[in-house]
């Protein structure tokens, strides 16, 4: 379990202005937790704290009981928690897809035979087996982001922290990455912390946490958040048109479940 215990964090040189204040949250294996909030609300800081890339100024962050502030064990934390960042171009190290996926486990000293097996399995998990020998810069942004996810998976982490992985993707790429994230948590049993301010991404989470100026402003179900117009506005989340339409239809008495975000599920709800 990733556990934030009353975590406070201030960047050095920020004059003591804290980026996070008294944040308490947990991510269990098999759970998909979304973190939303306006720009500058502390989302990325929270993601970096979960991996030990930043250390809390007050409170504590533990991953399966290991404190991220423990110098001796910070690499254990990083091998337990896979990170995926916003821009895939800033995290792909290898000149060939499979070599990049092998980078993380290679750093852990995994033997070559197992390395090959992990790379193949991770690329299969993200559906990119056919592109294993490609050069990353020839891939689409969505494919690049899936390479980055494969790179994190190849380290066999228990948890995944994704910092706005879909914000630079086109709708097709976004949907494929969201499907993948969904499956990783709910089928593969990874504990996933998904930083996102996209309503379609939030809708698929088991729990949503909204940060506002570094404090937890909402902690509950996605349906609860998505039907709370005031909270959505504070968090800077715009409902997609289909979501607005679904809400309007529900207000007119149509049987549309809360949190309907895409055309397919809306059509499915209206004509079962």
């Amino acid at each position, binding site marked *: 379990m990733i556990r934030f215990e009353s975590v406070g964090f201030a960047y050095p040189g920020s004059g003591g202005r804290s980026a996070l204040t008294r944040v308490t949250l947990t991510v269990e294996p098999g759970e998909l937790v979304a973190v939303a909030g306006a720009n500058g609300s502390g989302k990325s800081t929270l993601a*970096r704290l979960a*991996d030990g*890339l930043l250390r809390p100024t007050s409170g504590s962050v533990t991953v399966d009981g290991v404190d991220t502030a423990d110098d001796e064990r910070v*690499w254990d934390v*990083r*091998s337990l928690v896979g*990170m995926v*960042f916003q*821009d895939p*171009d*800033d*995290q*792909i*190290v*290898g*000149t*060939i897809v*499979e*070599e990049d996926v*092998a*980078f*993380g*486990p*290679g*750093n*852990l*000293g*995994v*033997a*070559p035979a197992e*390395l*090959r097996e992990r*790379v193949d399995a991770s690329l299969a998990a993200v559906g990119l087996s056919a592109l294993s020998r490609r*050069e*990353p*810069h*020839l891939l689409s942004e969505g494919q690049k982001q899936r390479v980055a996810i494969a*790179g*994190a998976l190849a*380290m066999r982490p228990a948890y995944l922290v994704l910092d706005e992985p879909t914000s630079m993707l086109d709708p097709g790429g976004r949907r494929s990455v969201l499907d993948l994230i969904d499956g990783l948590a709910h089928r593969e049993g990874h504990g996933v912390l998904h930083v996102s301010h996209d309503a379609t991404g939030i809708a698929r989470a088991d729990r949503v946490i909204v940060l506002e100026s570094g404090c937890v402003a909402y902690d509950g179900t996605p349906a609860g958040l998505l039907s709370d117009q005031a909270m959505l506005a504070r968090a800077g989340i715009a409902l997609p048109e289909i979501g607005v339409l679904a809400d309007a239809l529900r207000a007119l008495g149509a049987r549309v479940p809360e949190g309907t975000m895409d055309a397919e599920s809306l059509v499915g709800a209206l004509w079962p």
Partner: protein
Amino acid sequence: MRRGVGLGNYIAVDSPVHALDPAAKLGIVSAFTVGLFTAGTFPGLTLLAVTVIVGTLAASVPISAALRGVRTVSLILVLTILANALRWEPATVALVRVGPLAVDGEGLASGVFFAVRIVLLVVGTSLLTLTTSPVELAGGIERVFAPLRWLRVPVGDLAMTLTIALRFIPTTVEEADRIMTAQTARGARFDRGGPIARARAYAPVLVPLFFNLFRRADELATAMEARCYRGSDGRTQLRESRMRPADWASLLVAGILLIATGVAL
């Protein structure tokens, strides 16, 4: 906007030359280059020429690709032949005379000798980059220089730096392209004025480009740290290259050729 920026001139096909260990290929090319400069006679040069031809055929790369480098040095070739062949009122018997200038057999022969040497050098070394991807080459360089570790040279880290530089060339080219388009849209001209004015026109491209590169380097360092990069000690790689009998055999043949051209021919 995707131009498909390729790295180097690598041609990805399966061939015995491609399959050779990059470290062995580096050794062979070094031996070949030394042999080329120690060979003092036409028989020696012929032997090396045969080696290059056999290598090119075995690498199954198009002949045009192998000869591409020759075009760039064609001017040097012409000048080399002329400089050696032309004599001012030669004492020996001339083949051709144009006014006070003359061409004699001896000069022509040495001109051709030097020209052939340049052609072989260009084609021979381009075989290395045609059949070895930049990453493999970086790995090969790492292994060739591995003994320097004893002198505390961080060979692995340098090879990692080289690999990352190769990885970011296409990304940087695309970014430069994007910035240039953006500056052009705001009225910047890159094709006007003298060399100094043109160089100055690139300042508004280079400043944001470098700014972005530094930002990227910072992000990349964070990502590498998140992926447990702790220097190259104890790191494993997908392709553990090791010298196989075929690699040693080809290196041995290269060594014999080197001695043959240097001593006998």
